[in-house]
């Protein structure tokens, strides 16, 4: 089991990240990439995080996922700093023998990342800057894994 948790300012290449994850037992790789969406007058997003806790919290989320599914590799890469519309923000990549585990673990990791990993987004719009509010839909998405 390979686990890579990376917080960085730079962009990433999905193919390169997957190739670090891939083993010969891997039959299925599921990935999720989150991007800054063009959204009205949005100029940029700035991502702040809680160094050290971020890596530890994501590590706990990955451990939880490993207890739920037979995984062969997990990469979670999250960018920080100022990002523009079209920029990639986050990559979650999961390798497993079969597709069910890869798909489900990838969704689980994203849902928990959204609700547990200590990152905060500040938007710059033409009218000024403001902190993005947490979304109830993200809490609901994470909640559905409870008791499973």
């Amino acid at each position, binding site marked *: 089991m390979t686990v890579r948790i990376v917080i960085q300012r730079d962009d990433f290449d999905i193919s390169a990240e997957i190739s670090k994850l891939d083993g010969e037992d891997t039959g299925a790789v599921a990935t999720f990439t*989150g991007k800054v969406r063009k959204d009205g007058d949005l100029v940029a997003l700035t991502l702040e995080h*809680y160094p050290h*806790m971020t890596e*530890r919290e994501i590590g706990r989320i990955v451990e939880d996922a490993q207890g739920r599914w037979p995984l062969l590799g997990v990469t979670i890469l*999250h960018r920080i700093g100022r990002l523009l519309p079209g920029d990639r923000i986050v990559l979650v990549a999961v390798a497993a023998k079969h597709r069910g585990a890869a798909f489900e673990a990838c969704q689980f990791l994203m849902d928990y990342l*959204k609700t547990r*990993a200590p990152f*905060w987004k*500040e938007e710059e719009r033409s009218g000024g800057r403001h902190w993005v509010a947490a979304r109830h839909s*993200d809490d609901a998405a994470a909640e559905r894994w409870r008791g499973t």
Partner: protein
Amino acid sequence: MTLLYFAWVRQKTGRGEEQLALPAGVKTVSDLIAVLTQRGGGFVDAFADPKRIRVAVNQEHTSFDAALKEGDEVAFFPPVTGG
């Protein structure tokens, strides 16, 4: 102990980090918030609505009734919005 503030909590308190000796009588996160609020100004504003604040002690999410001890790292921040 080390106190950390993130996102708009940092902006309202006007600081990202501070060192503090565990104040007398502070047993829980709630007690600590009461002491910080006594500073007035941005601290009152930052903690005005506790439902909007989350806390981590020693880099783990916890609740306001978590026990504190000298040397703990306590972080205050809004609900997270990464990903």
